[in-house]
């Protein structure tokens, strides 16, 4: 019955359409939509659209047609489907010039959707807009404002800015709010037109209508971001904004703007954002808004999303304007509660914000570490990713052991895309915070095993560099890696690569018993590992290259297994991969060179640089607490204009041997001959960490605690490195070059009437030098007092001039200050 009725209606409708078309009436929009929806294939749909487009074009030629409105409506539908519709632009212009509201409405909609900024039609639409902006009918003016706000070009802005300003001054709230947003777009397009709107905008912020306030706030925010002068101008309005916000908080039930019990959350969010812009880097303005921020943070209901939106914006504002410490702790605690929220969107924005916040208030974020770790197990991949990043940001010397445990659990089941990033970050974290080298090595072996084939090549080369650079670690490393390689490591090619390199270099250490309990390892056992891995089809090309190279080296370190080693090397002489084939042929020849081969296959010189730790200090040998010490910092930014280009390898090795022993991209950094690659982007955050509040370790390379100062050393003139805000930093050579080392003393004088706290001194030297800083005598400097700090510079190339870039950071009256300087010449060096 219902179906029959539908069929009857369809037939009646079709009949009416046919009658209409017979009389010259074009198809109705509804009919076109129905036909498009009835099409079963794309070709059929295109046929329908093409036929109707042709009809529309035909109809456009009749300038007096009363059906323009209908045709444009159909054309907009065609446009949405992705078919060409630009030929309707001129018809839209004709429609907007019509007196009928119906025609204007569809014409302006068409203008917004079809016009582009380069169109010549813009001149025509500018004229229509100018007329309609002054129309007495508010909805016509509203349409014009809406269109101008969507498609304004620079010329259009200049022509119509004054008209928009006039509307802002009118009493019509409906048009005022639209004009404010229109002004926003004009200012964004042509910033110099800002001046037109500055006077009238002040009064906008005194309005009662929430829509007008919303538009005004948006406009002011944009103007303040564009111009520092305007920013200062509107800072005087902070008390007004605070009052509006207070009224929204205090007001009783207001049905007009109530959203689940909260008064106009959208306006609150907008005002909070404007306060953020106004209060940034301005202590006085910040103080004016501290109270209201605390009030919003403590009084806003959190049961619904709108309340959380307000709290979220409040937290962002508190963090951005560097509020007082108590307020920041409150903000971080709000984020901590967000982390426990059942709504995944709330958790996501909390992690996002904590990630940006962690460097502003490190200790406050640390308190929520356990909850962050829990987020590693969230079913949402977006949340897991943010949680992982935040875990690494929160790692420090104190918590690295427990945090590493959690991250490794996460790594075991993580998605493939996470394993790679996690492995890199884990190396950086362990290098900076490891309690000792053995722990660092063990942790990274676990990482290589869990991350499997997803470990980046740079981590492989960095681990090789770590083992190479720490002699006391090598015996332990070769043993641990040997046992790791013995297990089923075929799925962890990078682990095999590190193990092979290490066994090749230090395989002889495996044969020496380390303690009574360990099982003796024989040459046969070691070669057996290679015999089980190398022939496998699952072993990657680069792993085989590492393996062949390692075997060649073992040929000079082992005695009884020479024949087996030779056989393994020769096995690949006909390999289809030229890299492996050539390596096998050449090593086979070398192994038969007699005395010459021992020299060729000696241990590689110490590798002193790798791509991941360019910004991280090397680990100290002694356990020295140096919370206020400054690490060695060598990075491109700080040394940019000090680079003398005199750098070069300080360990020149046999070119023939070096070239021959290279094993491709994976171990490019394993050769001292290779130039150090540039630091990856992740190093930048570490550089920022070092200059922030994060505790950092001391650098001890080359430092000799026990060296006594020789008597009767000549006195050298100090130089002023930094002189800023009453803080003077002097550098003085106290011991000139001896064994390519020199000693300097930094003295910082506080000539201000206030106490400095958390004083930190940083120094960077050019590539031909290394610098190591001792802890400062005190991190706090009272008025008219000073602190001292000693440092040692090591010269890598004789007769080069030392240059240094320096930086200090300290806190005075709760605000962190930073100073910088460059020293180009040191008396005595």
């Amino acid at each position: 019955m219902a179906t029959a009725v539908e069929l009857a209606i369809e037939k009646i409708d079709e009949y009416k359409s046919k009658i209409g078309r017979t009389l010259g009436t074009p198809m109705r929009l509804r009919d076109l939509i129905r036909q498009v929806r009835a099409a079963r294939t794309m070709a059929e749909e295109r046929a329908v659209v093409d036929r109707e487009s042709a009809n529309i074009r035909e109809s456009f030629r009749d300038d007096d047609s009363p059906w323009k409105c209908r045709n444009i409506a159909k054309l907009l539908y065609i446009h949405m489907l992705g078919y060409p519709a630009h030929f309707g632009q001129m018809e839209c212009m004709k429609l907007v010039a019509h007196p009928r509201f119906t025609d204007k409405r569809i014409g302006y909609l068409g203008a917004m959707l079809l016009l582009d900024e380069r169109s010549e039609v813009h001149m025509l639409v500018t004229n229509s807009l100018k007329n309609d902006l002054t129309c007495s009918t508010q909805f016509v003016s509203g349409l014009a404002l809406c269109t101008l706000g969507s498609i304004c070009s620079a010329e259009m802005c200049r022509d119509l800015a004054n008209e928009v300003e006039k509307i802002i001054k009118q009493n019509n709230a409906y048009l005022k709010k639209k004009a404010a947003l229109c002004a926003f777009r004009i200012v964004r397009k042509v910033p110099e037109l800002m001046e037109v709107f500055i006077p009238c905008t002040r009064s906008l912020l005194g309005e009662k209508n929430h829509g007008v306030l919303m538009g005004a706030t948006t406009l002011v925010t944009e103007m303040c971001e564009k111009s520092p002068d305007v920013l200062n101008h509107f800072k005087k309005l902070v008390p007004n904004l605070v009052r509006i916000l207070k009224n929204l908080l205090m007001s009783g039930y207001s049905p007009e703007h109530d959203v689940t019990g909260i008064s106009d959350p959208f306006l609150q969010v907008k005002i909070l954002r404007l306060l953020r812009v106004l209060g940034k880097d301005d202590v006085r303005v910040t103080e004016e808004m501290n109270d209201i921020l605390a009030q919003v943070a403590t009084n806003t209901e959190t049961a619904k999303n709108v309340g959380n939106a307000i709290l979220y914006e409040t937290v962002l504002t508190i963090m951005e304007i560097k509020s007082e410490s108590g307020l920041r702790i409150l903000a971080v605690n709000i984020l901590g509660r967000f982390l426990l929220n059942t709504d995944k969107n709330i958790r996501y924005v909390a992690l996002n914000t904590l990630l940006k916040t962690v460097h502003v208030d490190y200790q406050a974020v640390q308190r929520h570490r356990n909850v962050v770790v829990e987020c590693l197990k969230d079913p949402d991949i977006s949340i897991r990713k943010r949680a992982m990043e935040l875990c690494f940001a929160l790692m420090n010397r104190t918590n690295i052991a427990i945090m590493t445990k959690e991250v490794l659990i996460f790594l075991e089941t993580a998605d493939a895309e996470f394993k790679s990033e996690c492995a890199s970050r884990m190396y950086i974290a362990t290098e900076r915070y490891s309690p000792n080298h053995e722990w660092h090595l063990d942790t990274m072996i676990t990482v290589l095993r869990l991350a499997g084939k997803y470990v980046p090549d740079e981590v492989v080369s960095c681990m090789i560099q770590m083992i190479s650079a720490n002699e006391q670690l090598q015996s332990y490393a070769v043993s641990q890696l040997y046992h790791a390689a013995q297990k089923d490591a075929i799925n962890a090619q990078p682990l095999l690569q590190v193990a092979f390199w290490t066994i090749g270099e230090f395989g002889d250490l495996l044969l020496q018993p380390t303690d009574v309990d360990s099982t003796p390892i024989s040459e046969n056992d070691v070669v057996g590992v290679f015999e089980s891995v190398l022939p496998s089809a699952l072993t990657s090309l680069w792993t085989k290259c590492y393996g062949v190279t390692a075997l060649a080296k073992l040929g000079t370190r082992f005695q009884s297994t020479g024949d087996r080693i030779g056989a393994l090397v020769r096995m690949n002489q006909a390999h289809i991969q030229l890299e492996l084939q050539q390596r096998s042929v050449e090593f086979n020849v070398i192994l038969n060179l007699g005395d010459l081969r021992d020299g060729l296959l000696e241990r590689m010189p110490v590798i002193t640089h790798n791509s991941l730790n360019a910004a991280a200090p090397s680990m100290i040998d002694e356990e020295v607490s140096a919370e206020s010490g400054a690490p060695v910092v060598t990075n491109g930014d700080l040394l940019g204009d000090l680079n003398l280009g005199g750098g070069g390898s300080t360990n020149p090795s046999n070119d023939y041997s070096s070239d021959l022993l290279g094993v491709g991209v994976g171990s490019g950094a394993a050769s001292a001959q290779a130039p150090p690659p540039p630091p990856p982007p992740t190093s930048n955050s570490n550089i920022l960490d070092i200059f922030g509040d994060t505790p950092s370790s001391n650098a001890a390379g080359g430092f000799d605690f026990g060296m006594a100062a020789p008597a009767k050393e000549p006195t050298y003139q100090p130089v002023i490195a930094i002189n800023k805000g009453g803080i003077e930093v002097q550098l003085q050579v106290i011991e000139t070059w001896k064994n390519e080392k020199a000693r300097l003393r930094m003295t910082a004088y506080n000539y201000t009437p206030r106490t400095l706290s958390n004083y930190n001194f940083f120094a960077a030297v050019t590539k031909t030098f290394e610098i190591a800083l001792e802890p400062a005598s005190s991190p706090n400097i009272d008025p008219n007092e000073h602190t001292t700090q000693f440092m040692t510079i090591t010269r890598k190339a004789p007769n080069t001039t030392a240059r240094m870039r320096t930086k200090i950071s300290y806190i005075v009256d709760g605000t962190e200050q930073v100073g910088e300087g460059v020293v180009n010449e040191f008396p005595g060096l």
Partner: protein
Amino acid sequence: MIKAILVINNHGKPRLLKFYQHYPEEKQQQIVRETFQLVSKRDDNVCNFLEGGTLIDGNDYRLIYRHYATLYFIFCVDSSESELGILDLIQVFVETLDRCFENVCELDLIFHVDRVHHILGEIVMGGMVLETNMNEILQRIQEQDKIQKQEAGITAAPARAVSAVKNMNISQQLKDIKLPDLPSLSNLKNAF
């Protein structure tokens, strides 16, 4: 700032496209396809924010979306917008549509796309939030619709008597056109 508002159904068909910055037509369609691929592969139990995509102005943009029955409501925004605030704005938009169309469903958006654009124009203008008070929005829409009806009445005076019979059929026809098997959007809004 809101750069684009897209309403796309579960099969990738666009139901509403509004760009607040100019993009060539082919680029607009590319954005629609890519955006749909990004949001459609996400479960309903993951958060409603997305970073990624390569088409809109480089990298300072995010997708914030809600999924209602057969439709995705997707806002492409830059970093100055509050993610949670935009989620609430989508809610205001959907509830307004629900009030304008009396139990709105996808077919209403299909057959009244021009009217949906007009409604959106009273909520978002120039890429920024214009009005969030639903009563104010509805009142303005109704006033403008009334003007349009009055104009239609004036110009159609000669055929009024004949149209009376047709209009009766049309109203009956509209009721029957709504397919009963499409679930209503309003039933799912309460879940958010």
